[in-house]
């Protein structure tokens, strides 16, 4: 009994469990008639052992794990590269890089300009049609959605799991305005999707406020489950109000975006590149707007509410009001992204608007770093590019739906090992550290030192 409770046994136990989970997670699928097939063949199926000789998967993964552990041990034993020091140095280097970029105005501006320049020339460097399409519909739009959800989850600290509902409302409003739904367009005028932007934003904000008002005054976990339910309810309505939404077939063809301003005439077509630039322009606008918002009175009120709601209330901040504002702004950006998707993909139906979508966006925000705009952008780029790479390259044994499993695992792993995200907002990281160290909000100052921190 003693042995099983020792730290070494626990470490080995979790390692073996991790090995089993990773092997099964990446393994071949099973089916209903033989439920154990997926598990057994995850270990028994023959794969190439690092390109050397054919071996069962179980052995291959054991080799993989053994080599990773062996590598770490080697580093420790040789003492030439201490892992801890390496880690400390890595994080110091990263934070220096971050501070160098973040704190010097010129450096920061330069960095953003270079990033923008790269984003502008990118579609001319990447000419593969898969990637050009993915850059619009799977990367740029997801960045837009992630920075919107970041306002809700990151800035205001509210867990919104029904983000997809607002996205769906945006997309369906576009279809309605342009006359692509069974429900007749307002006054039977078929407008261009550009007109849907203000209308969709108004619709989405109204539904956000209606949903938020009863729930935002309650505890945060209630909000999470109510938004989860709301996402589902919207899907039920989309699926079943045939005469309005077209049911499971969705909309007819939504027209493309177009501009007809006097001599200026342009129609976005099937080519994804013009849509990429359109989305990019909006991403830039939203980035500016949200970073201005972060440092505005509203943004500071969010920080105050997040850190200590009672104290915030006692200095005259109305928590409900600011939470509703955050919720509505987040919803508006989702609705906005819905409009672009509607115009770009032409056809929409309820299968796009599922829980998986909300979770996917949440993963982007968590991975990048809650409350850190730049982190969320970087996080979205990394995750979405990796996902698209896996879908495009189809490595042996990979099914597209496996991505969801990986994303779920990633959420848990981030919360265990790095809750502040890969590129954290300084403030948010500090907050998490304070909570974990048990420092009360009224004792938190810039001079407060946590355990292990040098003065």
């Amino acid at each position, binding site marked *: 009994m003693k042995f099983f409770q020792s730290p070494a046994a626990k470490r080995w136990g979790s390692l073996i469990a991790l090995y089993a989970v990773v092997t099964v997670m990446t393994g071949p699928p099973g089916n209903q008639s033989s439920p154990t097939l997926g598990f057994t063949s995850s270990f028994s199926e023959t794969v190439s052992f690092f390109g050397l000789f054919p071996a069962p998967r179980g052995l291959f993964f054991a080799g993989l794990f053994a080599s990773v552990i062996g590598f770490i041990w080697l580093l420790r034993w040789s003492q030439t590269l201490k892992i801890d020091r390496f880690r400390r140095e890595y994080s110091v280097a990263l934070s220096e890089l971050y501070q160098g970029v973040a704190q010097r105005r010129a450096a920061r501006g330069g960095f953003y300009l270079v990033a923008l320049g790269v984003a502008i020339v990118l579609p001319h460097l990447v000419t593969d049609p898969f990637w050009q399409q993915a850059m619009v519909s799977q990367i740029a739009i997801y960045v837009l959605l992630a920075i919107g959800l970041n306002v809700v989850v990151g800035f205001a600290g509210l867990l919104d799991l029904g983000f997809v509902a607002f996205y769906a409302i945006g997309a369906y409003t576009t279809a309605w305005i342009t006359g692509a739904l069974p429900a007749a367009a307002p006054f039977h005028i078929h407008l261009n999707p550009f007109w849907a932007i203000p209308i969709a934003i108004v619709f989405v904000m109204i539904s956000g406020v209606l949903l938020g008002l009863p729930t935002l005054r309650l505890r945060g976990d209630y909000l999470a489950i109510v938004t989860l339910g709301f996402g589902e309810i919207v899907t039920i309505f989309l699926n079943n109000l045939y*005469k309005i939404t077209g049911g499971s077939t969705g909309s007819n063809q939504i027209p493309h975006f177009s501009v007809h301003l006097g001599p200026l005439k342009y129609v976005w077509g099937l080519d994804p590149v013009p849509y990429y630039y359109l989305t990019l322009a909006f991403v830039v606008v939203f980035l500016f707007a949200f970073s201005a918002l972060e440092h505005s009175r509203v943004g500071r009120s969010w920080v105050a509410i997040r850190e200590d709601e009672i104290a915030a209330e006692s200095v005259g901040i109305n928590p409900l009001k600011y939470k509703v504002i955050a919720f509505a702004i987040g919803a508006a950006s989702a609705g906005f992204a819905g409009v672009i998707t509607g115009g770009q993909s032409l056809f929409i139906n309820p299968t796009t608007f599922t829980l998986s979508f909300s979770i996917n966006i949440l993963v982007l925000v968590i991975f990048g770093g809650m409350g850190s705009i730049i982190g969320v952008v970087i996080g979205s780029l990394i995750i979405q590019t990796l996902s698209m790479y896996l879908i495009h390259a189809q490595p042996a044994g990979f099914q597209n739906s496996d991505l969801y499993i990986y994303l779920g695992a990633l959420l848990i792993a981030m919360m265990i090992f790095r809750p502040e995200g890969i590129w954290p907002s300084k403030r948010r990281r500090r907050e998490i550290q304070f909570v974990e160290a048990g420092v009360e909000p009224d004792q938190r100052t810039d001079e407060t030192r946590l355990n292990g921190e040098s003065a």
Partner: protein
Amino acid sequence: MGGFFSFFSSHFATLGHEFWPLLVGGLATGFIYSMVAIGYTMVYGVLRLINFAHSEVFMTGGFASFFLTKWLVGSGTPSAWQSVLYVILGILAGGLAGAAIAAAVERVAYRPLRRRKAPKLAYLISAIGASYFLFNLAAKEFGRINFAMTQPFANHVLFTFANAPVQMLDVLTLFAGLLMLVGLDRLVSKTKLGRSIRAVAQDAETASLMGVNIDRTIAVTFVLGGFLGGAAGYLFGLKFGVVYTMGFTPALKAFTAAVLGGIGNLRGALIGGLLLGVVESMSVAFVNGAFIDVVSFAVLVLVLLVRPTGILGESLGRAA
């Protein structure tokens, strides 16, 4: 906007002569909601958190008992004694699988965060991650369609109550649900184990000073809630079949039931579940069948607006 009226049902008159059948159906579903709601309420009692992965506990219970029943019954027709045995084994399989998954979720998604005293948002996110991970893994391993469960007994109409035919399955659900709910209630209110759960629910820090092992108590709470959730998955699966997404909607409703009765309150979960089951069942008279799920969502929002502490009030510590 004429299409919107498809939301409302034209069966308003059915409420008159269908009242008893709807009541029986509603109570049977209500017991399932109650059993799942217990899991939410118990975890909420000790941790003040909603366990988002509880829907997957339900789903796993459904799948485990589905495979066991399929293997036991095979293609034959079980005799009366066999039926009884198979049902008991099915409940046990569902319950144990649910308990195992609940324990694993606690171990992986909750305990490391608790060690670090992580902020509340972190728990919610890791539980969501666990739920998402589990149901997608189930989809991968078992396929993505709804499987009808092999019936371990012939679902005869046993007797007629008023004008409601009462089937074997309804009786089983009522009986098994009541037995487990009462059993759990006794366990929490009478045994030493139950006392430690209540102690942690009231004040974890003081409880640990009094010698209660907090980690173990929390794990036990997950296991007990998981057992009932998994067993409920079996009873649900007998009627509606099993599919990897089967946990989502019932769990949302069970959560509504828990809030309706007063979250953290065991008897509240029972009352809330039954009430929600009946309300939902009766609402076919007003709302078109496809929109039934909207009703319980409306109930949830309404309860949160009007009386967020539920019918019996919150807290596991005192009420149980």
